[in-house]
């Protein structure tokens, strides 16, 4: 017990010192940036966008491009729209920016969200990825033109993997438009791995891959032809050195281009000076040697543009997507009604059943974890309700930023612990120690060890 008190007090002192030091470190009088810049990646950690941003982050660190570090924050979900909305609604001070690709244009066109690139200040374009159209090695199509011609003769028979609403979907629509009368059966497929396995399994006739996905998934020559893939068109303006034999779509008389670049955005209203600081830092990062070699290995082209040039690229891509935008085609019934209906029916059944059971003399079996005998202890539902109430207030306070995380958490632990011990005096010291340790400790672990943010 004494050991516990010594260790706990020691830890508390250390943590409090660390916590106070964080406050003195920040100096708001220095010019932008005077605190870490949060880069929102709207996809999960480990994915393509995440890898890209973290590669650049390395360049920032190596060349000391900004006085403050970049912090990568993954706000994944909703096809990238959760993260993009987060930055759109952020304070326009340059401390929370977004790295997002063409999906920012397609999300608006497919009506997933009601804002597009115009809701942001564009900072710069960094790194672009060539896209290719891929079939199985033993496919009867020698090139993209043949594929689309067959799609014209037998409409809706050929399956093409592209997620509805994603950039690849608009490209698929553009491909259809380039050969009048051609109609593909567009099947959702997210992720190169998913498309790859379904092409091999014969469940997709073709799909769009990024160049690096294609080169990674393609097996060595001599693999049985039904276990390998082959590119039939390259959606770039000229052939790529890595795949010199693959003709571009333009060469095949199909005027479709798709390159997936990473765009950097700041919330609308961010000062021009701040945008300029960020853009020039990004430009320098793209020139860093480590960054260049890493990106080359990932087969990302080292493109960079800002200002007018960047806006031009955006406008062109948006125009191409808009031209292809058609009414959403769907032959999928609305499953929500089915499941909702079943839930309601079963609910009625459950109610009926418990009603019947109550009528019969049959004793109900006690549920797991509950006890049939109540004599040996008193149940305290009110305490539980009070604790839940404290929890709700705690989360609300965190959401409103009324108190720093460490203090709010300590108070929460103290209050709930107190409620549970009925505020008996002998628990106070330990509860207080636990509260401070939990509050400060989680704050330390998450900000220092895991370098994430806290509410």
């Amino acid at each position, binding site marked *: 017990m004494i050991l516990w008190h010594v260790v706990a007090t020691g830890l508390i002192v250390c943590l409090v010192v660390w916590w106070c030091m964080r406050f003195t470190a920040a100096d708001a009088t220095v010019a932008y940036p005077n605190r870490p810049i949060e880069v929102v990646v709207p996809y*999960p*950690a*480990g*994915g393509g966008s995440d890898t890209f941003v973290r590669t650049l982050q390395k360049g920032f660190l190596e060349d000391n491009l900004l006085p403050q570090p970049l912090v*990568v924050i993954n*706000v*994944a*979900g*909703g096809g990238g729209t959760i993260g993009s*909305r987060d930055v759109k609604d952020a304070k326009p001070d340059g401390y929370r920016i977004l790295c997002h690709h063409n999906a920012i244009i397609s999300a608006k066109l497919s*009506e*997933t*969200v009601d804002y597009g690139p115009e809701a942001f200040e564009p900072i710069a374009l960094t790194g672009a990825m060539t896209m290719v159209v891929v079939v199985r090695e033993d496919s009867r199509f020698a090139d993209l033109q043949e594929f689309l011609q067959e799609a014209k003769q037998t409409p*809706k028979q050929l399956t093409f993997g592209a997620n*509805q609403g994603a950039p690849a979907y608009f490209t698929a629509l553009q491909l259809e438009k380039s050969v009048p009368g051609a109609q593909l*059966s567009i*099947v*959702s497929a997210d992720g190169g*791995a*998913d498309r*790859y*396995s*379904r092409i091999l399994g014969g469940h997709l006739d073709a799909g769009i891959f990024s160049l690096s996905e294609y080169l990674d*998934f393609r097996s060595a020559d001599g693999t049985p032809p039904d276990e390998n893939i082959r590119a039939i068109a390259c959606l770039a303006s000229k052939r790529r050195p890595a795949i010199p034999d693959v003709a571009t779509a333009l060469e095949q008389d199909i005027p479709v281009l798709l390159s997936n670049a990473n765009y950097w955005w700041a919330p609308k209203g961010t000062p021009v000076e701040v945008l300029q600081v960020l853009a020039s830092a990004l430009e320098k990062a793209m020139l860093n040697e480590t960054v260049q070699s890493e990106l080359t*290995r990932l087969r990302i082209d080292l493109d960079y543009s800002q200002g007018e040039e960047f806006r031009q690229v955006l406008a062109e891509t948006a125009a191409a997507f808009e031209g292809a935008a058609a009414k*959403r085609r769907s*032959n999928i019934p609305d499953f*929500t009604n089915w*499941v*909702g209906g079943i839930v309601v029916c*079963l609910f009625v*059944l*459950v109610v009926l059943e418990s009603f019947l059971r109550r009528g019969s003399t049959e004793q109900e079996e006690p549920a*797991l*974890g509950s*006890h049939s005998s109540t004599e*040996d*202890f*008193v*149940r*305290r*539902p009110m*305490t*539980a309700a009070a*604790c*839940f109430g404290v*929890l*709700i207030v705690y989360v609300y306070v965190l*959401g409103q930023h009324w108190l720093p995380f460490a203090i709010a958490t300590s108070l*929460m632990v103290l209050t709930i612990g107190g409620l*549970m011990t009925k505020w008996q005096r002998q*628990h106070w010291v*330990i*509860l207080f120690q636990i509260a401070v340790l939990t*509050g400060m400790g*989680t704050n330390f672990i998450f900000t220092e060890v*895991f370098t994430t*943010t*806290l*509410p």
Partner: protein
Amino acid sequence: MGLMLIIVGTALGIFVGAVPGLTGTMLIALILPLTYGADPLLSMTFLISIYVGAVSGGMITATLLRMPGTPASIVTTLDGYPMAKQGQPGRALGLGVMSSFVGGLVSWTFLVLLTSPIAKLSSKFGPFEYFSLVMMALVLIATIGGKSLPRSLFSGFLGIFLSMPGINAATGAARLTFGITDMNNGFQLLPVLIGLFAVNQILRDIINLEEKGNPIELGSERVLLKVRDFGHFFWNLLRSSVIGTWIGILPGIGANIGSVTAYSVARSVSKEPEKFGTGHEHGIVAAEAANNATIGGALIPLIAMGLPGSVMEAVLLGALVIHGLQPGPRLFEESPSMVYTIMGAMFLANIAMAIIMLCSMRFLAKVTRLPRPYLLPVILCFCVVGSFALSNRLFDVWVMLGFGLLGFLLEARKIPLAPFVIGFVLGPIAEKNLSLGLQSSNGSFAPIVTGKISLLFLTVALFMLLLPLIRQAMSKQKGGAA
């Protein structure tokens, strides 16, 4: 160096696996950036060890507190917690550790011997095959965790229904969001799970706070199992491990379903199915053997074809890519050392897991004996931070609280929670595959019954659904005759 990383990684994995609110996925994703500069072989060794530890660690809190630390250990709560309450926590944990160990080794054998032939097989599965496979797993809902068929089904379908809000994977359209943009991402599994199990259980514990003494104490009883036990559980271990491995192979199905399937199969073939759910040893064995076996299974398509089977695998895939290696058909040729490192790490991590768990068991059991007023608020804090850290959104924390209340109410009305979670996890997979199938068949449902594999799964599903009814009818007949 490698060995030390395995021990540290496994221990860390067990820790995050055991704490509700922290998951292996989160740890791997957070540690990933730290490994950028490190040697790729060592980084992978470390990450695989975390993976193995995390899937195993969940069983500790599932057994001792009825708060599954990870989704994979939900089924373990069904028999582990009752057994612990009956005064045999040591035996329950010992069984769990042993089964995890055997499950891991069996699937490791598959991984080493059969990686490339098996991986090829999985690409033969089209959307309709996946759909009927998932339907089969969904039907298992009806057979686990409850005495009343309508209640289990209701819980399962409610789970499916609540997995539906958000952006539809197949059409890209948002639905059931009621105009709340935060809902575009739907309810995430982690906050839902923490809410349903951890928050719900904490509320329950607070209500029953003054219960005399703490029921769970690890006495001087034997934790290590006797050789005789291995013989006793031999078939169950083997069957559950093989089921776990095969389910692990199928991308997107994951450890949760492996343990559910193995558990229901064990119950179906058991001579005393009524004992399952009351602290039956076979239940723990089946669940734990299977969920660890899914690791080896899931690594098969990852290594052979570059197909991640779960979120955790997707992060591992990302880790390989960051280190300049693309798992897939060419990994064997381009860097065989990486393939053997992954295999070796999994083998050693399994041994490390068993040793660490057995050694730390007494200490862990002590943690759960801490006075509840000290323990519960700290766990609550982890629940909040864990839900938030998932995608840095406070919305997820509200979701967690909401589902905590829902779980509490459902259990108060004696509606089992396990089917809810299974429905919640499997519903979207079933729907996505059905939608994809319909997209490529132009809206025709026919391929579900014309495809051989999918017809087989559906028949099995139907059989499983009818089995309890047939059994009931038969026992009634017998009772009537006697």
